[in-house]
């Protein structure tokens, strides 16, 4: 079975995010006054095979832990989607 994992990697809450702050200032400059906070991170979209959702989740988490996220400064969230056979 083929899965698509949407992975959102972002800077941990208490860690400074200079990029997010710069983008927030830019949005304010552009008069998006309703914006109260911005964080910028990495979006990784991984397709992988796995026998079931649990296995897929376990694999992708491991990829995040070893490569995709920096455990010291970053956190991540995974959303899984099953890819229908004819798409694969």
């Amino acid at each position, binding site marked *: 079975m083929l899965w698509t994992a949407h992975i959102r990697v972002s800077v941990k809450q*208490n*860690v*400074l995010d*200079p990029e997010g702050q710069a983008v927030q200032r830019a949005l304010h400059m552009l008069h998006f006054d309703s914006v109260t906070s911005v964080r910028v991170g990495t979006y990784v979209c991984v397709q992988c095979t796995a026998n079931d959702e649990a296995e897929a989740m376990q694999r992708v988490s491991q990829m995040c832990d070893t490569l995709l996220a*920096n455990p010291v*400064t970053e956190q991540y969230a995974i959303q899984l989607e099953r890819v229908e056979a004819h798409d694969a």
Partner: protein
Amino acid sequence: MVERIATEPTPEDIDTHKLYARMGMTDAEYALVVQQLGRKPTYTEIGVYSVMWSEHCSYKHSKTLLRLFPTTGSRVLMGPGEGAGIVDIGGGRAVVFKIESHNHPSAIEPFQGAATGVGGIIRDIFSMGARPIALLNALRFGNPNDARVRYTFEHVVAGIAGYGNACGIPTVGGEVAFDEAYTGNPLVNAMCVGLIEHKHIQRGIARGVGNPVYYVGPPTGRDGIQGATFASEQLSEQSASMRPAVQVGDPFMEKLVMEACLDVIARGLVLGIQDMGAAGLTCSSAEMASKAGNGMELWLDRVPMREPHMTPYELMLSESQERMLFVTTPDRDEAVRDVFAHYGLDCVHVGVVTDTGYLTLKMDGHIVGHMPVRGLVDDCPIVEPPAEVPAYITREPTVYPPVTDYACVLHALLAHPTIASKEWVYAQYDYMVRTSTIVPPGSDAAVVRIPDTHTALAMCTDGNGRYVYLDPCIGGRIAVAEAARNVVCSGGQPLALTDNLNFGSPQKPDRYWQLQQAVIGMAQACTVLNTPVIGGNVSLYNEHEGKAILPTPVVGMVGLVHDLEHVTTIGWKNEQDVVFLLGDTYVEWGGSAFQAVVYETLEGTPPMLDLEVEKRLQDHVLACIQAGWIASAHDVSEGGLAVALAECAIAGNIGAKLTMPACALRPDEWLFSETQSRIVVSTTPVHAQVLMRHMQEAGVPIVCLGTVGGNDLVVGAGEECLIAEPVDALRTTWKGAIPCMMQR
């Protein structure tokens, strides 16, 4: 009355449960604090004391040793004691430089640790009022077969590049070495060089009672709290989780703060300015007050905060980056604000200079800390720990059986990541920004032009931990001598140096002995070579699970090139140029790269170093360069003569036909021994005679090796051919080693 914060432990709790111990304070130090205050300290206060009295800020284990360094000289305008030292270079200008370590943060988060190390040293330079013009670094990593070591290496380099490049300061030099001993504890030392006009020199001093104290830079977060204490401890598996939050650098912010600070300084609006480095607001406020003999009152609720509900303890100890503290007069308030506003920055009035001699901390009108400035800054008890010669120290020289395949050994040396080309590293550094880099990374020293003049500065970093391990005193001498030699080979007159002492725990007598002996050796070399120490940094407790690194003093040397025409590089230049070796060669295997590569060990005694011989060599090479007789110069260091010759060939993209002079040495000894005080020079045939005569009269040993030319490096001995390798083959080995290692 000093009030405590409701959520924090009471002074009684701190005392009975010895909470100060967790901050790295001893019982005796705590007792001294109680005595100074005449009462038990609050949590905020003991926090402030603990960082001020940490090794990093107080130098308690190294202060007595540092006094051995010569720190004055006719050109020295400011020695150790301020953010950075300053040396006169004539014409009303001066050069400002300093080196600093960020070893422990880089072990835990290599990219940010290295980046913030660069950020910190840049602030040290511009807080003196100087324009930063160059960055260098000295890096040590473990065995690159270990994936974590490669990860650390890759991210440290990226962190240095990311920060320096964005600030627009060229990273022009440095060194990288790999050795098993640094596996759990890499070294990341960053050096910054700046230029200043004498009249703009600033000091971190809180002058004028009643004057306002300003904060500029990004808001304070809970970053790296207790970082100074942390730098004074050894690393363990727990270190990683101990940190609530690592410091993250913002080079964009640094660039703005730098331009704004240089602007207010140039306009004469500032009385005293200091960066918030280690121990943040605590160290900067206490030191500024101390230097003026004044007191200071800070209103902590006004300090910009990144997160809600920050406590006085957190605000005082945070190590958030890119922040500065400065003092001006009340009537300049508006002018100062205007300058910062131009750069999109706020400055905040956070306190006032007082005459109390106390650092007084207020939060919402309540006094939350009240401590004598002198006590904080000067009265940390100095420790002179016992020293003991380690058991491994020997006076026995090492002997090895002869090798027969010289070319094979040469290739193995060139492929060793410590010797191999560092292009993989410096191609990531913008070494050309500011359009003043005359000699980019890759030669003995980098050369940076002084704008609008025909003069330049030569600069480098050096320090071989293998020699220091085997004999710290000689190793210390070599570190200084080699740095000066590199500057000389580039056409510069060594002016002064900054040093970074990276050692293990001073509480272990054998390691303290290493530190002590290294300082003694360095001081000897500084005296003879006439290069005073104008500043530096001490990084102790470089241990990982009880195992110490190689003791590694790093020397950052700066020299003056009096005329751009004197600039000299290592590469051979023209067919028919004559190659000479200056200096005698002995059988000296201890600590050599040959020993590391062929025998994978570290044993014996390091090369000896006669400082008078060294001084004579350097003086006369510089004189001959200035006379225009020398086409290329390269000192012989790691890997010995064979590697030096290969590097001359590769850099010049031209071969040579050379012969080993008749002597008592075996060919492998002559080729690979690491005897000090040797330089390979080349000269046009026209100047060969005069050069030879000059050196002979000066008493500098000189032998002619042969001539430059062809596509091969050919070295013979009598009828025998020792090495005959295409320069292209040597280059492929040397250039390919690190990229290949990183592709694993």
